[in-house]
């Protein structure tokens, strides 16, 4: 099994695992970019357009777009659709609110040479420990 480990700051405790959905340009927080009740990415131009975030480990460099970012993820969570965990290259306010609000394990603030958006590919199987900041990647290929 081809595996790889990364270590960064645990931002929200808990262990989560699932397939990676890597969004190198993040996901817009604007209304309609993420389906409020189905958790599907509808952002035009997003490499994961049409992908549902449910049970995935979302890998992003940061958040972007509207400050409504957290609210759209939270709405989807209450509707029953949520990512299993977050990995973000760096923490920012938009994402921080989403993490705190949804209570989902998160790891962030990676070293410059360990950017998860570069190291992880969509479909890799990811296990994160939001308390210790450990990330275990099992490569898909």
């Amino acid at each position, binding site marked *: 099994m081809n595996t790889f480990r990364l270590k960064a700051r645990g931002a929200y405790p808990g262990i989560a695992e699932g397939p990676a959905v890597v969004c190198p340009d993040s996901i817009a927080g604007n*209304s309609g970019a993420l389906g409020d009740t189905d958790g599907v990415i509808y952002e035009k131009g997003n490499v994961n357009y049409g992908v549902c975030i449910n049970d995935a480990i979302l890998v992003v460099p940061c958040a*972007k777009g509207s400050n*409504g*970012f*957290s609210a759209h993820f939270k*709405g*989807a969570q209450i*509707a029953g659709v949520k990512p299993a965990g977050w990995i973000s290259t760096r923490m*920012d306010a938009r994402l921080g609110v989403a993490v*705190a609000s949804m209570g989902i394990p998160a790891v962030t603030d990676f070293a410059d040479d360990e950017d998860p958006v570069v190291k992880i590919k969509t479909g890799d199987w990811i296990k994160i420990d939001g308390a210790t900041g450990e990330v275990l990647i099992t490569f898909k290929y």
Partner: protein
Amino acid sequence: MVHLTDYEKQMLDGQMGKFKQKAMQFIVRYAEVLGAEELCQISRATLFIGAQHYLDCYAEDTDYKKIFSEFYLCSDEIVELGEVSECCKTQTCAACCDLREYERTHLSREFHERNRKYLEATKEMGVKIVDSCTPYYVGWVPMMGEHFVTTESSNVVISNTIFGACGNSDGVEAAVCAAITGRIPKWGMHIKENRYATCVFTLDFEVETQMEWDLLGFTLGRLLPKHEVPVIVNGLKNAEINRMRQLCASLSVTSAAEICHIVGLTPEAQTLDMALGGKKPRHQIHVTEKDMEESLSILCDKGSSKVDFVSIGCPHISLDEIREIALYVKGKKLPEGVELQIWTDYATKEMAAVNGYTKLIEDTGAALLTGSCPIVMREDSHRHATAMVMFGAKQAFGIRHQTKVPVYYGEVFSCIDAAYNGRWEEG
């Protein structure tokens, strides 16, 4: 571990009631996620609340106390709603519909009533109903160094950049809890060290019109490396608040920027060295006209066609702009089946009425609307459209997440011409 003052500990312990306790619990949790060491006191807030579509996860008859407790306070326990902090001047941000003109925007009476009900509960908390994404036009102006929260991304950039005030792009839940507690994590833009520019933009061209400023913001956001703070050193002509509004709004569509220094124009960038805090920038980027053309190709579909839905006023426009539009459209008539929506806030619309601008606009068949916009009203408001024209870039880009019909974008008066001609002409 977040260091709390005695006052903050008392709030967290529940000595000021459960409402504030729950809000403080969230603020502390948020601070821990960010890695903040302490909190700071805020004195201004705008909140993106009401029957917003992110609440579509709730059945229509759900008790608002349950919604508020679960969604905003992040509490499993339903608590009695209290009041926002006396120290924090709090008002609503953009709303999910015009408070009066719901039929004209194709929304149902039921949705309109639901929003009114939520806003009435909000008013009881001491939140003023303003429904504006440009609150600085109606008196929400933080001073230099003042700490604020706002759920409007463009207002974050405006308030940090022009007013020198301090705030992050906190989401709705944090903004609500901050307004209740009067506290937000002291982190990011609240700390001077994080406000210095790290990426220098040099323009190979000049921008002058409102659309050019708008398009520049969108372009800079695309080019800005993640996690960096931009400064623009040249190329901006005819600087004024309405152009800055467009630049800041579109910058925050394509990036996570929270401030955008402009050398010689904004208070923390009287010189480039001042903007950089005496340090070397991590990035230097030359922006070309080709970059701007690429942005335009993202925002404006190719070709010419009939159009039947035109929206101006993203973010909400000022009285000066309404006057210009009123005089421009005076005596014209919209073709049958074409809608022209012009968006502002209630106070500005009242002034527009006093000055006769509203009548000039509405006599042509156009609508001067308040408090919302097509993106925030969502699909019900524009599902019938067969081709759209949108200003600004935030609207022209954001609406694409909600529709498959052609979307065109251009200079404000080209967009208005398209409405009265019932047709968008390329080029």
